[in-house]
């Protein structure tokens, strides 16, 4: 158990040490420009910041899904052997909740972000931005979030509101 005095002393040492630590950094980072790191700059924020140029709709997405995704996610994203992507609305309070893009995911930006960085499993980061928009549109359309002909691009995807966006309770910072 620290005594109050000891806690104060440790606190004072920390305060004294921190600026010195920062100043003693060897400063070996090399400046990097947005253009130089574009290939790694993949994250999409929930308000759509980061979405690239390109577009697609569910009609084209359905064709790509049949070619590249169905082996893991099954017909119309109904799942097996990997995650179910479609349906499950109304199940979250049941004994067997089904968490899919339509029933659970709070932000449409996440669908684009995740497909582009990690899918398909055997060939991640192989899809074009148009393909990612098309697949995103297909999955949103299967879940009834958008219509089949709706075009998804940086502007329209940013405006899509997911059915379960209000279904989360933020627990950080802890109270």
């Amino acid at each position, binding site marked *: 158990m620290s005594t109050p005095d000891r806690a104060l002393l440790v606190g004072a040492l920390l305060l004294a040490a921190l600026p010195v630590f920062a100043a003693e950094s060897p400063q070996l980072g090399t400046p990097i420009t947005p253009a130089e790191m574009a290939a*790694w700059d993949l994250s999409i924020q*929930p308000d759509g910041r980061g979405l690239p140029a390109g577009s697609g709709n569910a009609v084209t997405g359905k064709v790509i899904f049949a070619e590249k995704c169905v082996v893991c996610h099954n017909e119309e994203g109904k799942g097996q052997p990997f995650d179910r992507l479609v349906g499950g609305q109304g199940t979250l309070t049941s004994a067997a909740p089904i968490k899919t893009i339509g029933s659970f995911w709070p932000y449409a930006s996440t669908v684009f972000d995740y497909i582009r960085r990690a899918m398909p499993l055997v060939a991640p*980061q192989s899809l074009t931005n148009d393909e990612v928009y098309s697949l995103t549109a297909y999955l949103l359309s299967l879940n009834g979030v958008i219509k089949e002909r709706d075009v998804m691009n940086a502007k329209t995807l940013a405006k899509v509101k997911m059915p379960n966006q209000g279904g989360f309770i933020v627990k950080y910072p802890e109270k």
Partner: protein
Amino acid sequence: MSDKPVETATPPEAVAGNGLLHRRLFLTQGAALVGTGGLALLAARPAGAETLTVPTWTKSIGAPMSGYGVPSKYEEKVQRIVRPGAPGAPGTGGSRTPLELINGTITPAGLHFERHHNGIPDIDPAQHRLVIHGKVKRPLSFTMDSLLRYPTVSRIQFLECSGNSAVGWAKDAAQQSVGNLHGLLSCSEWTGVPLSILLDEAGVEPGAAWVLAEGADSAALSRSVPLPKAMDDAMVALWQNGERIRPEQGYPMRLFLPGFEGNMNVKWLRRLQVNDGPTMTRDETSKYSDLMPDGKAWLFTYTMGVKSLITSPSHGFKMQGPGLYEISGLAWSGAGKIRRVEVSADGGKTWGEAALTDPVLSKSLTRFRMAWRWNGGPAILKSRAIDETGAVQPTRDELVAQRGERSNYHYHGIQPWSIAATGEVTNVHA
């Protein structure tokens, strides 16, 4: 509470019901051990020793030195418990630390649990880069060689997957070893560069509140870290137990966030993007969130709750007859140090305080031990940890009352083991 530690008149060293003895019997230092004799854990002394002969290994030249030692061939059974995520996708899933087969608090690097989302990348450190960008004054790229010149800190701390012990949520107690049940838990000495040094060098801009961390694996796994944590005790870890981090732990570098759920400790770290808000990645929304009975999900439940479990005896052990035994286990908390561990041998009616083995470190595994004279009758063993914030490890019933049975993550309920009169040890909800 009716279950506070009880002092019993006989036998004199008893501290709680059904044979729990005072922890001084197992103190590691001092005079307490002298003369007890009873520390021999065998229940019954064998009838007679065999006649000794000089073995061949004493009469011949032993093996030479080696460049990198490996465990004895007699210990080959000590292996991680490998569980692929799905057929045809060996890179997904995890492996668990066989907690019942190791002792102390440090996990050998080769037994540290794994959880991968698309396999272990084969990263050439000479080509790897760590980039810091976003809301910073100076976007920077670091090479491995440059990072190795930075000031470092070392800390012995645990890492636990928030999905550890998830079978605890199931109605029926799973009949599996403690490694199977709870082995997404390991503890290492981590050495690396305080993240605050690197963020200060890049110059965090006003309005920044989160840092997105991303790996270089083929899942490009990404999680948002609150800036206060990133500036507090977060580390870019380069070393584990004295050697460079193993490939399956993130070689050449991983993010280490003491006390936070395992998934956030991004392996193969390549990019840190300073942002004004959380990115709401797939792994922090659709996966590592905790669904409550009302259909709402808790988001950003980072700190691993106060927890303990008895590793010996545990499921699958067979008691060797009545007598003195050491109860041994692990306790930890993502909020700080373990203050106290209590053990019960009567299903939670009475509790005795266990001995904590030094050093008791913050956000680390603490080994506790308790002397127990088993009378050969049925018993239910439990352990209960209390951390320095005063948080008490809950029972399963208390957790389920609060969170239902579908939240999947962050199970930290008390683990009961049932000892039958036959000596069989099984998992029970009790």
